[in-house]
């Protein structure tokens, strides 16, 4: 299981009366095995939402819970993929992926099998003995995704995972993530400011307002994806050409632009 719930969640950085109100009245439920993307203007608190599910931050108001249990601290049931990869530079690709399994006290032979399988799935087998700095950004992020996936987490938290990659690599990684998510569905919370990425990847897209961040609108992408049969197109650019895709994307763009305008007013 992996149901994420935000109930009336607020977050204030600093003191309650003079601090910065980052989030206010966030209500959102992410169902088991659902892929939800949060988009919003920068500084709207979308990353804070993810960090609260990860257990890196506590909610000031309300409750963030997974499967009904309020979150207290980070843990391997909620694996995180960071924008800057956060791989351990002194560990090889293999050892980076191994650490989480060792923490779970998985037996040696099972660890070897699971790592081999994930390396294979992510096309990383030949890089097992490499150190992170010997790999390109895209490769490093593959390792970070492998490190998260190998734990078989209920929930996968991705914080602008492709934000630091160049445009071409980004597209490849997006296609790969879709492939991975189909084969191995997980509850995913995906933070991004790239609208197309959100529409292409997510079952639902939540749009946030500028600070204090609130959920403005939640769009159901999955029903349109299924109705228009997006998955029959293999390449991302073919999907992005579809009228239904363009329509959704434009809708979100408008919504975000209103936020931008409100900010400057």
């Amino acid at each position, binding site marked *: 299981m992996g149901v994420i719930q935000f109930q009336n969640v607020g977050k204030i950085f600093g003191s309650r009366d003079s601090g910065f109100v980052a989030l206010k009245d966030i209500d959102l439920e992410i169902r088991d095995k659902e892929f939800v993307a949060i988009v919003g203007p920068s500084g709207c608190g979308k990353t804070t939402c993810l960090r609260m599910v990860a257990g890196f931050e506590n909610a000031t108001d309300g409750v963030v819970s997974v499967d009904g249990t309020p979150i207290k601290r980070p843990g391997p049931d909620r694996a995180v993929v960071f924008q800057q990869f956060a791989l351990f530079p002194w560990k090889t690709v293999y050892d980076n992926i191994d650490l989480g399994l060792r*923490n779970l006290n998985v037996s040696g032979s099972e660890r070897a099998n699971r790592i081999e399988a994930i390396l294979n799935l992510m096309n990383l087998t030949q890089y097992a003995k490499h150190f992170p700095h010997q790999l390109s950004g895209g490769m490093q992020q593959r390792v970070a995704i492998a490190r998260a996936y190998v734990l078989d987490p209920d929930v996968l938290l991705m914080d602008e995972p492709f934000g630091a990659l160049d445009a071409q690599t980004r597209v490849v990684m997006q296609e790969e993530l879709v492939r991975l998510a189909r084969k191995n569905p997980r509850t995913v919370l995906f933070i991004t400011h790239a609208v197309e990425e959100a529409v292409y990847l997510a079952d639902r897209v939540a749009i946030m307002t500028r600070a204090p961040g609130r959920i403005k609108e939640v769009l159901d992408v999955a029903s349109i994806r299924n109705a228009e049969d997006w998955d029959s197109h293999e390449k991302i650019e073919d999907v992005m050409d579809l009228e239904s895709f363009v329509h959704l994307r434009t809708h979100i763009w408008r919504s975000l632009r209103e936020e931008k305008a409100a900010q400057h007013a």
Partner: protein
Amino acid sequence: MNRQISFTQSILLGFLGLACFLGFWQGMAMSGLVSDIFLPSPVEVYERFMALLDRRFAGATLPGHLAASFQRFAYGFLLAAAIGIPLGLLMGWYQLLDEIVSPLFDALRFVAPIAWVPFAALWFGTGIGGPIMIIFAGAFPPCVINAYRGAKFVDPRLIEAANMLGTPSRRVIMEVLLPSSVPSIISGLRVSAGLGWQSLVGAELIVASAGVGYMMVQGQANIQTHTVMAGMVAIGLVGLALDSALRGLERYIQKRRGLDH
């Protein structure tokens, strides 16, 4: 003046400085302004140095004295590293320990290594414990401070990554904090080796058997200025060798990490 100075130029300039210094010294010695009992010429010091390499003075040859000194140094230095590095890392990780230890540590840090001499003499007499204690007093603070800094400045994202992977504290310290602090620890060891080696002569004032410091004190007693100065040269050369060895280690580790790209 932002002109780049090439490696060869920098070596040549270094030699130029050394040559000027030796020239001035030789000039002073030859001018007769200072009696050569108190200021032997560089040539005399060099000859004395070479002679001491295989002639015994104060019970041993210069390499013999150096070996005795180096052994004491190694004990004190390794002890400082073995206690200081873990202490610094733990202080960087556990704030409670930091609060408890820091005030005491900061106060003790101002007691210069040489100021430990009387205390060490009371405790250990002329045994090997005294010099080790004094070298330790010089070498310990940089070990603690740099390990502490390393632990404090670890990339917080790596700690978050370790936490979300469910890593227990002990393993975070050994597999994240320690390796992340290695560059800082190595530069701490460089400073620490320097201070430890500098504290040596102070330490050896209270040893009555062997060591470069002992040799120099004996040279002083016999009014052999060239012996005293040969000892100083030996201390300088060994210090230089020690520092470049640790500098090499520092570079090697940076290279392995890919930090210099």
